[in-house]
């Protein structure tokens, strides 16, 4: 069931491409504006690149997860979904997997864009960078799906979603930026593994919390 929901979201996304195209474009603009805000000194931009990378991914991720839930508000689709005789956790897992697919595409493309725009050598540390992006994407999808579900039926959802989501994502941002920095600088202090562990712990806890509580949202 979870896979069916994820497949449905992925299919709708492939046909319409509302979430990916607009959020990618948004991420690109964010990167460009960061360049204006901190540039044009290229050494300084390269030093700030890990932070900029993750801020762009997080900001664009907010848009992506909210789009995926807005799909369900048309024709009361979410209510229909809640009526299916399956575990509520499966619905959460399905929505989160759909979000994860979008976040992975987004994360990888933004990573590439950062490499090009800020002259960062990504190829030198591809594996740890990919791992960081995957772990970060899981965390953002898990937290984002939960909060998008919480706010989707509110009038002020556009404001409330980032307001609730960003403070919770703070540890992820911190760990991901640190892991990216460590990967790019060749990990001189041997701290990369610790930061990746932090990301894994964050992902596990947030997926569990989201799966455990999401059902109550559909009930009310």
């Amino acid at each position, binding site marked *: 069931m979870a896979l069916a929901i994820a497949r449905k979201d992925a299919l709708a996304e492939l046909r319409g491409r509302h979430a990916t195209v607009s959020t990618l474009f948004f991420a690109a603009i964010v990167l460009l504006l960061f360049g204006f805000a901190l540039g044009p000194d290229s050494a300084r931009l390269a030093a700030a690149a890990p932070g900029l990378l993750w801020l762009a991914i997080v900001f664009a991720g907010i848009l992506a997860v909210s789009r995926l839930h807005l799909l369900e508000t048309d024709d009361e689709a979410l209510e229909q979904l809640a009526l299916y005789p399956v575990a509520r956790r499966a619905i959460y897992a399905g929505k989160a997997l759909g979000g994860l697919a979008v976040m992975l595409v987004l994360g990888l493309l933004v990573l590439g864009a950062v490499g090009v725009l800020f002259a960062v050598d990504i190829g030198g540390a591809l594996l740890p960078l990919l791992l960081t992006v995957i772990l970060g994407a899981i965390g953002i999808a898990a937290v984002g799906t939960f909060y998008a579900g919480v706010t989707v039926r509110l009038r002020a959802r556009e404001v409330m979603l980032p307001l*609730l989501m960003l403070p919770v994502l*703070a540890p992820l941002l911190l760990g991901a930026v640190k892991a990216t920095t460590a990967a790019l600088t060749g990990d001189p202090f041997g701290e990369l593994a*610790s930061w990746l562990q*932090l990301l894994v712990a964050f992902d596990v806890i947030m997926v569990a*919390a989201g799966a455990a509580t999401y059902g109550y949202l559909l009930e009310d």
Partner: protein
Amino acid sequence: MKTRILGFVAAAAIAAMAIVSLFVVPADLNQGDAQRVMYPHVASAWLGYLSFGVTAVAGILWVWKRDLRFDAVALAGAEIGVMFTAFAIWGGMMWGRPVWGVFWQWEDPRLTTTALLLALYVGYLLFRRLTDDPARRATRAAIVGIVAAVDIPIVHFSVEWWRGLHQGATIGSPSRMLNPAAPMVFVGTLLGMLAAFTLAWVYLMIRRYQLARVQMAREEAVRLERLAAARAVAPRASTPAPRTPESTEAAR
């Protein structure tokens, strides 16, 4: 009446402890008078944490027992927690300026953690205001409150690490002021201040809870009034099955 007496006692205790901490206890050798900020600062930070714990527990109890009184407790905890936490941050900044030389110190994990904590619960309070139906609001708020509480340890841990892997010790962090070698007179004053603040906290929690219950009763009254008005407009249509608030609640 008893609550009112408690309020007076709490106010008197805080006034007494203010005098003790400002004039009776000697100033710190290194930090001078600025260190006196520590007493209310630490007390309010502790109570802020306690309040958010109360909110999380009350949220779980609401989901479990479906009693709106728990939601009133959760609201009281969040609101009073935000107040105490904001006060703790403000006090810390007033202390940080003369001692550290800056209002804000990114190296201090407690400061950054507490700031995120404040953001989490201000978001919680704003979120609460957006749902009109009491039961729905309670459920949604409970979920958001529980996830926020789950996030707190991760935030604390990650920020602690962030600083730890980054740079050496922080000068004058609260843990160093509370070390076992601290003179008993300082520790005693801090405990006295904590007791006085806790009395005030209990008083405020009771009052905020009572207020929340009154607000809920009013919401319910307004709802019944609207229902009656709707019935008065179309008396024939609704006579076969008069809808009580219970049945509308159950139908949902």
